[in-house]
């Protein structure tokens, strides 16, 4: 599997390009896309300006391979793509992109939710929340 990790933010044009690539697949009737966008959360009066993502990439790739395999077995999907940013992603930028396609709409929703949740839970990604004053704290998924 090609790497799902992208250096820097995921650009809207990259998402558009992914969509366009699926327009030659005429058995697809429904796409569902999840995008994670960095929030400017205010924590103890300090505002998050960016998140710096790092990753244990060899382990992440092997876990993502398992996730993909299991998702294709569980859901009736035509295509599935997962991308995550590495490096410093500013508030408002997209850092996570899950893209699922199927023949019918009913197949896609649960698959998307499943993939988003399992990536958050199982993939060794780490996020340093950098505040506007350059101090930081480490992000923890709830």
């Amino acid at each position, binding site marked *: 599997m090609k790497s799902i990790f992208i250096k820097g933010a995921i650009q809207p044009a990259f998402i558009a390009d992914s969509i366009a690539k699926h327009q030659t697949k005429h058995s697809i009737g429904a796409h569902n896309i999840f995008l*994670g966008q960095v929030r400017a959360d205010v924590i103890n009066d300090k505002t998050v300006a960016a998140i710096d*993502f*790092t*990753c*244990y990439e*060899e*382990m992440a790739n*092997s876990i993502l391979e398992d996730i993909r395999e299991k998702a294709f077995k569980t859901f009736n999907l035509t295509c599935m793509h997962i991308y*995550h940013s590495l490096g410093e992603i500013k508030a408002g930028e997209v*850092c*996570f992109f899950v893209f699922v396609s199927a023949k019918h709409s009913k197949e896609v929703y649960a698959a998307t939710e499943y993939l*988003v949740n399992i*990536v*958050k*839970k*199982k*993939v*060794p*990604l*780490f*996020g*340093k929340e950098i505040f506007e004053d350059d101090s930081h704290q*480490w*992000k*923890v*998924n709830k």
Partner: protein
Amino acid sequence: MAVIKYYGAIAEETKCSEEQMAVSDLKISDCMALLNKKYNLNAFEVSIALNQNLVEIDSTIKLNDSDELALLPPFAGG
């Protein structure tokens, strides 16, 4: 020698991303005790991966040369 890898908040604490460690006859649990003593990692919620697979922190598996042991803080993707 095995390689010990550190990520995220833990790498910040250890001030390095990886180091070599002599492991002849060393259990994972003992290795973790050594690292805890060296870096004081008690404040961290750590999970560990042996050659990219999660294992228990008190595992009695013995480390071999060329093993890769990774110390991972809570995952935060998405």
